[in-house]
């Protein structure tokens, strides 16, 4: 099981220390953002990572589970192995037609 988790610390430096060696998945690029409470990042964590981060909590460090991502393997059902474009389907976009 994986979770999306928001981790906050008082300073950028402390947030880096908090995450160091945690095994957290920081996503595509580690994007931190400044909030009233401090500096935060949203990351992906499994149970072990959550436990590690929970154990390191201290004053100024906060950890909030945003949502469970469920079983990622279930996502493979969103993909198929056949090629729809060999069966007559044509690529289409999602823009709405606008007549000038």
């Amino acid at each position, binding site marked *: 099981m*994986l979770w*999306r988790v928001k981790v906050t610390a008082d300073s*950028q*430096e402390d*947030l*880096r220390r908090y*995450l*160091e060696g945690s095994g957290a*998945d*920081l*996503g*595509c*690029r*580690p*994007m*931190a*953002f400044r909030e009233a409470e401090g*500096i935060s*990042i*949203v990351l*992906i964590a499994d149970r072990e990572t959550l436990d590690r981060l929970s154990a390191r909590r201290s004053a100024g460090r906060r950890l909030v589970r945003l949502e469970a*991502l469920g079983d*990622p*393997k279930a*996502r*493979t059902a*969103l*993909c*198929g*192995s*056949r*090629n*729809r*474009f*060999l069966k007559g389907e*044509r*690529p*289409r*976009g*999602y*823009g*709405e*037609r*606008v*007549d*000038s």
Partner: protein
Amino acid sequence: MIYYNYDEIHSALQLLAEAHPGLCTLQELPNRSHEGRPCLALAVGWNRGPEVPTLLAIGGVHAREWVPPDALVSILADILSAASGRHGLEYGGVVFTYEQIEAILEGLQIVVFPCVNPDGRVYSQTRDPMWRKNRRPEGTGVGQVCFGVDINRNFDIAWAFKRHFAPGAVSASDNPCDPQVYTGPSAASEPETQNVVWLLDHYRSTQWFVDFHSAIPGVLHAWGLDQTQSSDAAQTFLNPQYDGLRGRPDDSYREFLPADDQAEIERLSSLMAESATQVAGDEYGLGPAFALYATSGASDDYAYSRHFANPDKAKVFGFTVECGHEFQPDSDGRTQNIREICACLLTLAGEAVQAGRHDSRRRPVVAAEPLGSRTAV
């Protein structure tokens, strides 16, 4: 089935090229992926070829980010449909008239490489949805084989992170078993990376580059190496005097970003973020790619770095656009993210055309390939 598999992406580009021969050119990339898959890009515009001002858009660098390749196929279909049907396009509240789309196709070549990392996509869609890297096998020297290089840490920009950066300052790893950010055995070692480099080299008038990712909505721009400054041109990734110092926030080293470039990069980022936000109200942030950590070997920094490293190369404004909140959203989320990407890319294309009109230093448009017929798109 919601998402395109890699065979479908490949077929979609072939079908679009066959259906619109006057307006696009299929470009086979010189390198197959590690597992031997062929790679295709599509160049779209009334004028096409290496000398034409070009916007290069790529997706699928990170395997688990399933939306961007689908979005790039979708925008190709939209643009070509709009041109042939002589109509405009709307994404949420963001409208592009037929005249605006025609102006883009007149003044710009858009080269789209939807799926940079085909092996990773296949693996992610069939075996491990959280897989991010490519599928290079690499022995560790103790009888173990680990798989995958993070293509977005493999480009030749401050790639040797242990030399260039302060210890612990950068999001990168030289451990082949790192599940996320292994940099690879050498700079631009990966065929998938080399294909992107080839596109930048081949379409040598590329001036804008966007790498689409997910899943925190935002537009990122130079630099990812460090915080920036515009007064000391000696503080650059090229200067070995600063090796070992880069990547720490709020210290004396900051990466040089000329003030004019900064203004233009921020302007374009802001317009892209506004456009994407307007589609469905999901707020796209913006800012330099350097945030919590520095990044080495990333595509956007590489694109922008090329003219610093070699003044013979064109200046390319590089961006990373991240869409949505999930790597693999459901059907509604996928559709929304696709529309956001399309609005974002067409906004940038429109601005690129405007910028080209006002830039007297721009090279003249020379059609290196046959011009298409306006009536046979």
